[in-house]
């Protein structure tokens, strides 16, 4: 049986110090070492490191990715395969993880960069109303603002910052090696109980172009057919986010590592249902026929898992919604019951229709909230990651009113951790 052992080292506070160590819940971080590691990439220019804790009157802007510190300590394969080590992944072994801590990377595209005219904003407020709906407001964050040395293409810029985040996430977790964990959990799919329903998970992830990409063991998902992947691999960082999508509906690497749907499926595995596996489907295919082709193949893989039901996610807006809805249709036509986790686009007033498209088979949809609802973001004492709210003159610590959608990181995430839900009023 393929089993992943996860050793837990909870972080209750972080601080900069003379050396990097973990002791009794405190994570001390040596700035110089962190900076030196990031600078192993010659393309890196300016680096600014800061710390934020839950409850701080602090805001982090221009968030690119969030990663939980993890490292593989025993068994074959690596953590974040394909990024820091050989792209070899295994569904078993032992890893150490540090819940309560997160590495937050921030960056800013230069105005003359080639792809996007306007970079999407993405923020984490450590206190206030937005903190209630953002998972990274609850973690102790090492904030790393990383800018390129010279002009870079957007895909190269993204990869540079993504890799830096992963590298430091592993570096921090490495200091727990040899220490006794506070808790240990094991993850295994196990043998199917024939009396229980089989449930699979289908992750439809963004893969539009190199700037809106998701990586599987370091490989771009743009152009790939849907694939099987063991959930234990996802826990070890096989799925890495690298997409310049809008803040609240974008998947962060942290949300793959701490995937609420995978955790929920593992929780009562063998008791209420059999968790039979995970399929990843690339979304944002360019041609409608390709979307149909990919969704048909995903449904066939799910059928191959002998799933009776599947939970289907999405990541983004209208275009990728088609893959999600088509996957729903293809699964239902093969007798596989579906449930979709979906954010809604009801407009600022909440009166618009929630989706631009749907299939009649999508009769079970769980809401992660209206993304377009407006929120007041209060003034904070301090802000990190950038001087102003993107594409404005407003200083980043100042108050502003905007929609959740283009502001709060992961607030409407369709990977399942969101508690935001839209109700009829």
């Amino acid at each position, binding site marked *: 049986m393929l089993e992943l052992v996860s050793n837990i080292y909870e972080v209750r506070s972080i601080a900069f110090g003379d050396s990097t160590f973990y002791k009794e819940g405190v994570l001390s971080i040596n700035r110089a070492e962190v900076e030196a590691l990031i600078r192993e990439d010659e393309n890196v220019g300016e680096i600014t490191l800061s710390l934020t804790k839950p409850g701080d009157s602090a805001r982090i802007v221009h968030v690119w990715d969030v990663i939980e510190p993890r490292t593989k300590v025993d068994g074959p394969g690596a953590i974040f395969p394909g990024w820091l080590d050989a792209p070899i992944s295994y569904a078993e072994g032992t890893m150490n993880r540090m819940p309560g801590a997160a590495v937050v990377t921030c960056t800013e595209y230069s105005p003359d960069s080639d792809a996007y005219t306007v970079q999407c904003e993405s923020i984490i407020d450590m206190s206030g109303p937005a903190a209630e709906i953002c998972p990274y407001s609850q973690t102790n964050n090492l904030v790393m603002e990383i800018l390129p040395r010279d002009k870079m293409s957007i895909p190269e810029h993204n990869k540079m910052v993504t890799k830096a985040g992963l590298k430091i996430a592993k570096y921090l977790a490495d200091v727990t090696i040899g220490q006794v964990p506070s808790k240990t959990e094991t993850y295994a799919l196990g043998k199917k109980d024939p009396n229980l329903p089989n449930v699979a998970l289908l992750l439809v992830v963004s893969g539009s172009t190199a700037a809106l990409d998701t990586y599987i063991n370091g490989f771009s998902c743009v152009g790939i057919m849907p694939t099987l992947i063991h959930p234990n691999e996802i826990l070890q960082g096989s799925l890495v986010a690298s997409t310049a999508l809008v803040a609240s509906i974008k998947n962060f690497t942290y949300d793959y590592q701490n995937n609420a749907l995978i955790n929920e499926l593992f929780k009562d595995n063998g008791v209420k249902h059999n968790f039979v596996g995970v399929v990843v489907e690339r979304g944002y295919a360019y041609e409608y026929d390709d979307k149909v082709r990919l969704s048909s193949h995903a449904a066939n893989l799910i059928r191959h898992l002998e799933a009776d039901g599947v939970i289907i996610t999405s990541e983004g807006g209208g275009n990728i919604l088609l893959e999600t809805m088509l996957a729903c249709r293809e699964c239902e036509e093969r007798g596989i019951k579906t449930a979709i986790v979906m954010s809604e686009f009801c407009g600022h007033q909440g009166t618009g229709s929630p989706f631009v498209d749907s299939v009649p088979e*999508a009769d079970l949809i769980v809401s992660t909230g209206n993304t377009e609802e407006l929120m007041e973001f209060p003034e904070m004492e301090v802000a990190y990651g950038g001087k102003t709210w993107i594409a404005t003159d407003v200083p980043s610590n100042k108050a502003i009113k905007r929609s959740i959608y283009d502001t709060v990181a992961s607030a409407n995430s369709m990977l399942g951790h969101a508690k*935001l839900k839209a*109700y009829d*009023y």
Partner: protein
Amino acid sequence: MADQIKVVFYMNQFFAGIGGEEKADQIPIELEELKGPALALSQVIKESNAEVVKTVVCGDSFFGENEEQAKKELLGMIKAASPDIFLASPAFGSGRNGVATASICSAVTQELGIPAVTAMYPDNPGSELVYPAYALPTSNRAEKMINVLEDMWDFALKVKDGEVRGSAARENYIPRGVRKNEVDESTAAERVLPLLLSKIKGEAYVTEVALPKHDAVEAPKPVTNMKKATLALVTEGSLVPFGNPDKLESWWGEHWYKYSIEGLDDFEKGKYETIHAGFENANIDDDPDRLLPLDVARIAEKEGRIGKLFDIYLTTTGMETATSSAKRMGREMAEFLRSEGVDAAIVTGT
């Protein structure tokens, strides 16, 4: 002693005892005396130190066929009485009555700022019109009038005191086509799995998001002869002159713009660009004809395969754009093109 609560009540011709269907064209009037449900309500609210100070009546057909006029006259009568609360008699399953009671309640709250409550069968078409006022659910048949009036009164008092804050399900009123966020106790992951297991087992389940009803747009008749037709180029891909002089938004499109393509054979790199936030712009900036094929259209014009290429192109942003905005802009664009003698349009999207 606290101030008395003043209530104005609305009824249709039937509940007012004026007549049945044959009197549905009754014009808006004020009643001299309390009758029917208005009388019943006055008994219900007496112990709350409240009084029905005026009853207004309108025929269901008159309202349906002269809505603006009916609303104007009724609002005038209602405003004159300065009520604290406005109630409209339950419509139950009657569609025209429901439309009238919902519409007048909605107007009273929107334009006079007065809490307004009615009641009807949830499927009554009026239920979609009542926002920002409220409609309580009833049976399809007109029955239990007193009970319904009591519920409406209790609810109206709560609205007046600002105590109706929760969702339709929690506060027991009919959903009004508005969705608002709340932070649930459980995550989407915790909620979705038990629902899916119920669905697999063939047990009952309720979706959290109902599928939207999309209206079907009937396609117009095809152009009979393209060689005589004027063709326009339109895009939602945010194609703009370089520098985006009119500052077209990159998402949440609410504006559309017209730019001349007179004498142009294609969109030259460096002179045009896209500012759409929904896809990587580099490929389009490299050759903007990829987004809107001016080059091919111009060749078709020169070869006589189309009659004429309209010398203005239209552009907007279809990223994160509200359906209502898209509808409005589409209508405006169509009206403009039609007024310029355009027969057909190619609309490119992303």
